[in-house]
């Protein structure tokens, strides 16, 4: 059995919505008791439609938000309770690639600065060492060294996503949460980025938590799939089972809705 990196137990996240002065606030149950594991070295995809709670799950795993209830064990330790130095260590090990390569990069910063920032904040590397590491990362994600001094607006969506990937790799993380990393890209560029993600996973022995609404993409890259619906997990199985023998009605409906080319 392979090692478990994340163990998520009965995770809940409720949002209160103010309905006006004299009304009771309305409770939105974004996550309502979700449990699953992430194994080392696997690609686990979380799929579902808008509002199902997949991005909320990602936010909680990255400690961008705090859960209402439940535990997130990372290598045996509940990360919902950690702070200070321990939290810093955790942030190094778990990184994220965002959906929108247009808004997730600072337009005033050069590529080298963007990729090097995590190193500056989290390590005591010298400027020279940082530059070397950044150039190494740029090479790994298929960028040319002379792009170091350029700005994000000089790049296309696919190239920008490479910058985001290099930044996520900077601290040698164990897990990368990919939140819809290819849904803003053209199909041919999407293929390039997916190929890159698969290459990097192999080379750096990464674990991916891949969040997506695109089942064709998910089918291509995942080992295991968690299907979410209205804040709950309706099915959690390996990719073959999900696509060849789905158990839950909602999973079946989702798979039937994929527009697949067949002639």
């Amino acid at each position, binding site marked *: 059995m392979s090692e478990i990196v994340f163990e998520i137990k009965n995770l809940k996240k409720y949002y209160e919505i103010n309905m006006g002065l004299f009304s009771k606030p309305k409770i939105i149950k974004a996550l309502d008791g979700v449990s699953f594991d992430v194994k080392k070295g696997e690609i686990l995809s979380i799929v579902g439609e808008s509002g199902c709670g997949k991005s909320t799950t990602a936010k909680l795993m990255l400690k961008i938000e705090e859960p209402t209830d439940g535990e997130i064990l990372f290598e045996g330790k509940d990360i919902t309770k950690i702070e200070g130095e321990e939290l810093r260590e955790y942030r190094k090990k778990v990184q994220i690639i965002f959906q929108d390569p247009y808004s997730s990069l600072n337009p005033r910063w050069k590529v080298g600065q963007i990729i090097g920032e995590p190193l500056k904040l989290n390590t005591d590397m010298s400027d020279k060492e940082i530059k070397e590491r950044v150039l190494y990362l740029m090479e790994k994600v298929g960028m040319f060294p002379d792009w170091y001094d350029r700005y994000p607006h000089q790049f296309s969506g696919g190239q920008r996503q490479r910058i985001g990937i290099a930044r996520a790799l900077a601290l040698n993380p164990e897990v990368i949460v990919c939140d819809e990393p290819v849904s803003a890209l053209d199909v*041919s560029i999407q293929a390039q980025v997916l190929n890159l993600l698969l290459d990097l996973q192999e080379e750096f022995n990464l674990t991916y938590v891949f969040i997506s609404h695109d089942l064709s993409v998910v089918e*291509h*890259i995942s080992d295991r799939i968690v299907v979410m619906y209205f804040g709950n997990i309706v099915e959690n199985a390996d*990719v073959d089972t999900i696509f060849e023998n789905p158990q839950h009605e909602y999973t079946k409906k*989702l798979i039937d809705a994929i527009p697949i*080319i067949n*002639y």
Partner: protein
Amino acid sequence: MNLLEVKNLKTYFYSDAGVNKAVDDISFEIPKGKTVCIVGESGSGKSITSLSIMGLIDAPGKIEGGEIVFEGTDLLKLSEREMRKVRGRDISMIFQEPMTSLNPSYTVGYQIDEALKLHQKQLNKKQRFEKVVESLELVGILDAKEKYREYPFKLSGGQRQRVMVAIAMACEPKLLIADEPTTALDVTIQAQVLELMNQLQKKKGTSILFITHDLGVVSKVADEVIVMYKGHIVEKASARELFTDPRHPYTQALLHSIPTPGVTKRKEKLATVDDSVDYLSFPKEIR
């Protein structure tokens, strides 16, 4: 019979950096009652083609040549006043973003009614109300009478897109241009909207020009497919021909770059469109 014929259309954009030939000499036809899909990636000129047909190209853009013949009339020769009568009545358009293309300060009913008020002057208020309710029901919105008085923010993305379809279909246009109408929607809702457009087409005999980058969607809706690349048409074929026997290298690369359950091998390298290849140097495949 062709409803629309686009001949040698050229739409250019001018800036200090020079001329951008967004659409560069393209020709195609849309037969009556059929769905023609334009596919291509960002910057291929597919949206500019649709805006050119609607007469919505503004400075710094300019239509530099060609003809857009709709039922025997060249739309490019019409005055703005005459064009306004064509828009909404004969040709109407569904935009990509259901969240931003409805006016937030008017009710849903009012916005559908507006199209009727402009183009179907023979109807009185009561008849128009009935027609609006009918068109909301047609797009599968339940409790249409209540929804008439709702503002767009109360509706979900799928419902808003249905309202957009209702507005576009209200005057029973002969040609419906749908620019990525389902891209912002969840897959199950996408399937519903595609089915809806299909039914409307069958009922009313509308021709549809469908613009998308999603080849999966194309295979569901298209009769004919036009593949655009950097402002040019590189391949034109029936949907069956295109998917079973793609001839242009760009089309082939595009088709192979999509992960397809049951076809592409899991975790195996996907084909990519090669940046170093000049796809325009290959002969065009127009069947």
